[in-house]
């Protein structure tokens, strides 16, 4: 748009000429629209058929004979056909309509044609000087990379070599656990859309999820079994690391973070077990927190922290819910990042 305006304002003569051309075109259009009152029907046509056939006569003839259209000629009924137009192309070129109409049409369409041809000629240079074509994915990547320069670090991350001794199935147990954590996060968010953490509504909301929500039963089933799978795989990963002695120096802190992650996973299981708010959940939590209350010195403190009071109530449910969906996930994500960073930094332990 700016370029167009610049062109318009560049010089007096160009401006004058373009304005004059515009005025001429608009004026011609106006003139043609008001002056082209010559209709094709005014052309003197050589036709024997009348312009307005006597339809009432024809209709009475046809209804009296009660015959199909194909037999009209046999019954000597002639339906008048419209007169053939003697000059079809005259409508377009404007012949027979005087001097000014065809002149205006030829000027306007001729000018438009010349402009189009000029545009085509000019476009060839644009086409000849075009940039090589790139897929849009690559263009997007380059656009981002120009601004944030991430291709270097990303390449470094992706080019990290993987030792061949780590290409055994028992080295992927930890990775599967992490993937299951992601699955738990996604299905957990979906469940949280419908779950209500109050004693009055919790049980019914899970019934609602299982019976009314589309694929709700699937999502709860996946959340349930992926939780069990996470614990199994956590323990399996830990045993693999233990058997292969991968916890030996210098990787002690990696083991410590892993053990804390196992504890967090078990805490996930413990807090999540209460949420359905059925008899089993309620009494398992009651017994579980009672066991925590048996710890010397800090026992009653732990009990009150877990139950928010001396018995399992709606406050316990709220607390377990908050722990289950906010506190524990945050801690787990943080520890997982640490865990991965340490593995990344130190590499995978080499077996003997």
């Amino acid at each position, binding site marked *: 748009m700016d370029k167009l305006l610049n062109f318009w304002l560049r010089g007096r003569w160009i401006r004058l000429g373009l304005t004059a051309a515009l005025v001429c075109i608009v004026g011609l259009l106006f003139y043609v629209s008001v002056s082209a009152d010559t209709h094709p029907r005014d052309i003197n046509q050589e036709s024997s058929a009348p312009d307005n056939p006597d339809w009432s006569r024809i209709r009475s003839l046809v209804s009296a004979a009660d015959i199909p259209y194909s037999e009209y000629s046999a019954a000597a009924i002639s339906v008048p056909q419209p007169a053939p137009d003697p000059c079809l192309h005259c409508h377009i070129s404007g012949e027979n309509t005087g001097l000014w109409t065809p002149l205006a049409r030829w000027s306007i369409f001729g000018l438009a044609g010349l402009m189009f041809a000029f545009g085509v000629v000019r476009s060839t240079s644009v086409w000849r000087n075009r940039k090589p074509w790139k897929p849009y994915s690559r263009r997007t990547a380059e656009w981002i990379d120009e601004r944030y320069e991430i291709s270097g670090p990303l390449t470094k991350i*992706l*080019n*990290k*070599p*993987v*030792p*061949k*001794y780590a*290409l055994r199935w028992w080295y*992927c147990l930890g*990775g*599967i656990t992490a*993937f299951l954590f992601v*699955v738990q996060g996604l299905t957990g968010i979906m469940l949280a859309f419908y779950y209500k953490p109050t*004693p009055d509504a919790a*049980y019914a909301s*899970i019934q609602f999820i*299982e019976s009314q929500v589309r*694929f709700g*039963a*699937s999502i709860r*089933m*996946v959340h349930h079994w*992926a939780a069990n799978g996470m614990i199994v795989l956590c323990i399996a990963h830990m045993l693999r690391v*233990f*058997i*292969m*002695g991968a*916890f*030996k*120096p210098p*990787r002690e802190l990696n*083991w410590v973070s892993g*053990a*804390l992650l*196992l504890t967090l996973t*078990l805490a996930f*299981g*413990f807090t999540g*077990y209460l949420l359905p708010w*059925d*008899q089993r959940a*309620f*009494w*398992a939590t*009651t*017994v*579980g927190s009672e*066991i925590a209350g*048996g*710890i*010397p010195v800090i*026992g009653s403190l732990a009990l009150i922290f877990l139950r928010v009071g001396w*018995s*399992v109530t709606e406050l316990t449910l709220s607390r377990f819910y908050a722990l289950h969906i906010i506190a524990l996930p945050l801690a787990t994500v943080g520890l997982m990042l640490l865990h991965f960073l340490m593995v990344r930094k*130190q*590499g995978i332990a*080499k*077996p*003997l």
Partner: protein
Amino acid sequence: MPDIEQPSADETIPFYPDHFRTELRVVLWIIGIIVLIGIIGLLMPVGQGDPADPMNTPNHVKPEWYFLAIYQILKFIPKTAGALLPVILIILLTIVPFLDRKPDRSPSIYRKRLISVIIGLIVLTALTIWGEVT
């Protein structure tokens, strides 16, 4: 402190795309299993027991299967010891690398650890099954 030895180039494969492809395949298989579990869930939902009733204690209170072993031990030892046991176990598990600091000399240690792990697993499984059936 033993050095972290970096593997040489002929002992490694590139992460991307070689290893990435393997990992993608594993992930796709797991997603397949998850979809299967979801389909089973449509047919047989997890379900719920009776609604919670603080006034009515059921006869059998059972925790989840991964707490069953410790729950079974708890039945036979005093309450304080039972409450301390899981805490001590977790602390022991956490400080394993500081208890066993000696670097491994030969692969035969793997077999020893494997056997000890198997024995531990058998004990845990036995306790879990025992807790499940009683």
